[in-house]
């Protein structure tokens, strides 16, 4: 027995106008200052006005890798204003923060760090619905029940989640992602690829999510280089925006795996953007899991029309194809290339290993590394050395 959970997904040109169809009293908008500057919040408010929904407040204080403290600030305001809608406008950080704020608002008996997949029946939407308006083409957070928050004191990322925190509506309007700079397009695109591949190969993979993951992988290989090379390529932009949501629907129902554990650890210590971090570790993770699941790597290679020679390992071939893609969009292939000085890396290695071993995504990894292997994985990926153990 398993569950497939999804929001109502409104996608394509002018999807944002769906907000004018909502019914309700007042909305609490969760966003960041960049979204305000870009005018996206005004566009959202305009649609909510048409729906007769007052904007109770715009909380624009969500930072990258949002903290438990930020969530607390937002939920405290929500309790004062009592909105019946939360509208998240932004990327993964904003959407995850909004999911957690809604939990603390509707269920003050639960703090954000306690959001977990084992306790069901939160019944959030009866009091306050959530709509996620995605403005990046990466995280897919608009279509997942995962919440990643930072415990800044402990210097760690918390991989939380509950089926109950899923947004009621996901707005996937490509116009909102059209202004992403090339480097953000590349970072977030690697996140999509990692979601697709890990969702397809996690221990929770299933027939319902498999097709979504494969479709997302295909879209990334076909359209990500175009979207990075030419931001005005509207077809590539739209396909990548859809791919992010599709991958979210896929991996969100089958979980991520080792590359996410390593990427979360790196991000929590060195603040490397999430997509860049998980994308960097993706080929190393594939090599580590390796021949244990050649059938899966072979299936992915087939889906992206990559030939696996009879005498080659599909894992190695796929890892190299991913490195080629990353190279073509100027993504770092090693942690050293990502700009982390070796001295700082060495000083942080114990913390990196600690964080990775504790990360929730390891639960669904096909081959779980020991602490010693985790350290080797980090060191190999620092140097850009293919995994041989």
């Amino acid at each position, binding site marked *: *027995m*398993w*569950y497939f959970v999804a929001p109502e997904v409104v996608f394509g040109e002018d999807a944002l106008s769906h907000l004018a169809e909502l019914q309700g009293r007042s909305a609490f908008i969760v966003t960041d200052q960049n979204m305000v500057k870009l005018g996206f919040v005004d566009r959202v408010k305009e649609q909510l006005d048409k729906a007769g929904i007052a904007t109770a407040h715009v909380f624009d204080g969500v930072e990258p890798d949002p903290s438990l403290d930020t969530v607390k600030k937002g939920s405290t305001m929500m309790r004062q204003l009592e909105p019946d809608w939360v509208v998240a406008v932004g990327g993964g950080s904003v959407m995850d923060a909004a999911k957690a704020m809604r939990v603390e608002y509707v269920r003050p008996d639960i*703090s954000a*760090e*306690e*959001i*977990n*997949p*084992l*306790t*069901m029946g939160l019944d959030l939407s009866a009091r306050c619905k959530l709509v996620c308006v995605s403005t990046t083409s990466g995280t897919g957070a608009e279509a997942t029940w995962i919440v990643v928050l930072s415990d800044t004191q402990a210097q*760690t990322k*918390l*991989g*939380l989640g509950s089926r109950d925190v899923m947004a009621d509506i996901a707005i996937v309007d490509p116009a909102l992602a059209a202004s992403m700079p090339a480097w953000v397009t590349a970072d977030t695109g690697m996140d999509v690829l990692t979601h697709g591949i890990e969702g397809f190969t996690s*221990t*929770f993979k299933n027939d319902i999510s498999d097709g979504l993951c494969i479709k997302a992988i295909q879209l990334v290989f076909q359209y990500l280089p175009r979207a990075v090379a030419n931001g005005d390529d509207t077809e590539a932009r739209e396909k990548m925006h859809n791919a992010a949501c599709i991958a979210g629907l896929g991996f969100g129902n089958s979980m991520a795996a080792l590359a996410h554990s390593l990427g979360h650890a790196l991000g929590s210590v060195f603040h490397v953007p999430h997509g860049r971090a998980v994308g960097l570790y993706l080929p190393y993770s594939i090599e580590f899991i390796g021949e244990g699941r050649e059938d899966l790597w072979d299936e992915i290679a087939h889906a992206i029309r990559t030939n696996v020679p009879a005498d080659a390992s599909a894992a190695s071939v796929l890892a190299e194809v991913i490195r080629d893609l990353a190279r073509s969009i100027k993504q770092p292939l090693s942690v050293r290339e990502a700009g982390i000085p070796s001295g700082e890396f060495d000083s942080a290695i114990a913390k990196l290993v600690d964080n990775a*071993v*504790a990360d*929730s995504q*390891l*639960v*669904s990894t096909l081959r*779980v590394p*020991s*602490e010693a292997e985790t350290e080797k994985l980090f060191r190999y990926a620092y140097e850009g050395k293919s995994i041989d153990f």
Partner: protein
Amino acid sequence: MSLVIGTQEWVDAAMQELNTSQTYKEAAKKWEGDMYVIIEPEGSFKHRIIGYFDLWHGECRSASVVKDESDKSPQYKISGSYGVMKQLLAKQLDPVKAMMTGKLKVKGNMGQIMRMPRAALEFTNCVSEVDAVFPE
């Protein structure tokens, strides 16, 4: 020889499994808190079995069978029906999926569990590793 679930020998074997598992040691190295494993009666299986495990920093310090749930006040409880536990022991059910679909109920400080999700998973794996049969 299979041990009978609900006996001291059974919890002793589970404790040994926990204390010899490097995977558990690493996953639970910061874990602090004792645990009940409760097998609920179902159908013709009328017993209610409660195993108690004192878990601390990757070690199981003691384990015992408890007759009455109120005998101890552990910080965590994992409970499941006879049928679910039988499937787990037969490796027909993944413990994480069992937890995430509510077949195995987990109670306690969820904040700690979400910081060390693999600790709970590896604990369940170790207990499931014991070659054991249910009492008649």
